[in-house]
């Protein structure tokens, strides 16, 4: 299957990515080339095969549900582009 311009524009919206109109057309071509390439996976019979996400075989460790870090908001917000004290500031969300 092949993506059209409108579909790519809507994926870009989902990804919160502004893609200007003049860059949309080449992006459609690139994505279709990539999807065309990966479609060869359809040839592989994966019936009854479990998906793999964990390659080490180690179970995820558990720990006590307790606070182990924190208490330094100035360090956390040190790189904020527009800080308000030790808060992040963003454009107004609620009118």
């Amino acid at each position, binding site marked *: 299957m092949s993506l059209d311009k409108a579909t790519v524009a809507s994926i870009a919206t*989902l990804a919160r*990515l502004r893609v200007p109109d003049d860059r949309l057309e080449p*992006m459609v071509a690139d994505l279709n080339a990539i999807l065309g390439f990966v479609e060869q996976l359809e040839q592989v019979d994966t019936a009854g095969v479990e998906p793999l996400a964990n390659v*080490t075989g*180690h179970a995820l*460790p558990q720990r006590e549900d307790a606070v182990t870090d924190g208490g330094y908001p100035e360090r956390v917000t040190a790189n904020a*582009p527009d800080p308000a004290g030790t808060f992040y500031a963003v454009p107004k969300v609620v009118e």
Partner: protein
Amino acid sequence: MAGILDLDLVAARDALRAREISSTELTSAYLARIEATRDLNAYITVTADKALAMAAASDEKLEKGEGGPLEGLPIAVKDLFCTEGVPTTAASHILDGFEPTYESTVTAKLWDAGAVMLGKTNLDEFAMGSSNETSYYGPAVNPWRATGDADTRLVPGGSSGGSAAAVAGWAALAATGTDTGGSIRQPAGFTGIVGMRPSYGRCSRWGIVAFASSLDQAGPLARTVADAALLLSGMAGHDPKDSTSAPLPVPDFSAGLEDGVKGLRIGVPREFRIDGMPAEIAALWAQGVEWLKDAGAEIVDISLPHTPYALPTYYIIAPAEASSNLARYDGVRYGLRVDGDSLAEMYANTRGEGFGAEVQRRILTGTYVLSAGYYDAYYRKAQRVRTLIRRDYDQAFEKVDAILAPTSPSDAFPIGANESDPVKMYLNDVFTVPLNLAGLPGISVPAGLSARGLPLGLQVMGPMFEEAKLLRVARALERAAAFTARPAMLEGV
């Protein structure tokens, strides 16, 4: 001091311990070399003052006969590792001005072991690329030139291209890299050095800018196999801050290096003989097989039947994980912010301007393959094929101790040569990607020169967490290959 740059990591360590040289002398020589090789664009940030301060502190310890296993050794860090108070860019515009207030586990371990930080090396943006050309800071340049063509600048490979260029051009004694689909091994092969990707979980990912979390793994780039083993010892180890970090003791990777391959079984996977493989790559591979056979190994033909599907599997899983990981760059908490009339517009403007074209391609690919209605067809499917790829290796390692293959299907190509075709660029990783999907360790060793006079690497792959055996095979290969060629730029250095 003449010849000081000629010392490799192990030799420099011994010279420092014997007080034949000081870390300040060694570090100053590298800082001067970095200035002399600015054309390589290997570094994004050089931390000269910090390097000299660390060197002075190391000299004090060495003076007293103290210090860690890497005491006083100047190394470079891929600019994907967060370093406290030192800009960390991931070679992306979107991390403009970002100075972490914390240190990655791997680099913290290296500094604890006594290593000296020269600076942060160039890379493909967010480690997404195979040529270092997607860097916001411009491409790093391979120290090598093709015979008779001194003018054409070649790529050093990627994504750890700056680290590879720095080590190959002697602008660092060794360097860290990360390998998500070949990003340590391929640049090592392109620049005539050694590059190793350990098993997934061997090095902590904490504090490394995430690309594809189930594939990313840190590792060393160095001049020799022994150097790589030494640096890896300083990087590896369990870290409670990374839940996927392996809770295993770290063996002495340098201990059995010279034990040879006598009695070991080396697999040669038939599916790596791809159509259109250049004759010189096939010949070098055959030569590598002969070398190991002559050294006493038993050669076994093996099959890894799902190899042809590794690349398409990777180009679903890696972008999917990347699109999720990169959602955090929103202009709110760090880095670039491009204003907009609403919060959503600010996000979109920041990300549209802050990410380069390749990163945007992967975010969009990842978003699509994870979107409702396509998740099973693409992402789940790829994860199932990943199981089959891993199973191929598990079955192979029942029969063999290690696997030998080429590192890459070509030698280094000119800057700009493959830029216009993303899929063609992806094919660079055809021999390296399967290992990342399987989670296994691999190492590239310089093994010969192409007809154009450029380095070619051979790759050894090993079973999970058996890095020590892998390094032993790599050392045997290195000894047999006796690769002594150097880029012309090193003449007289």
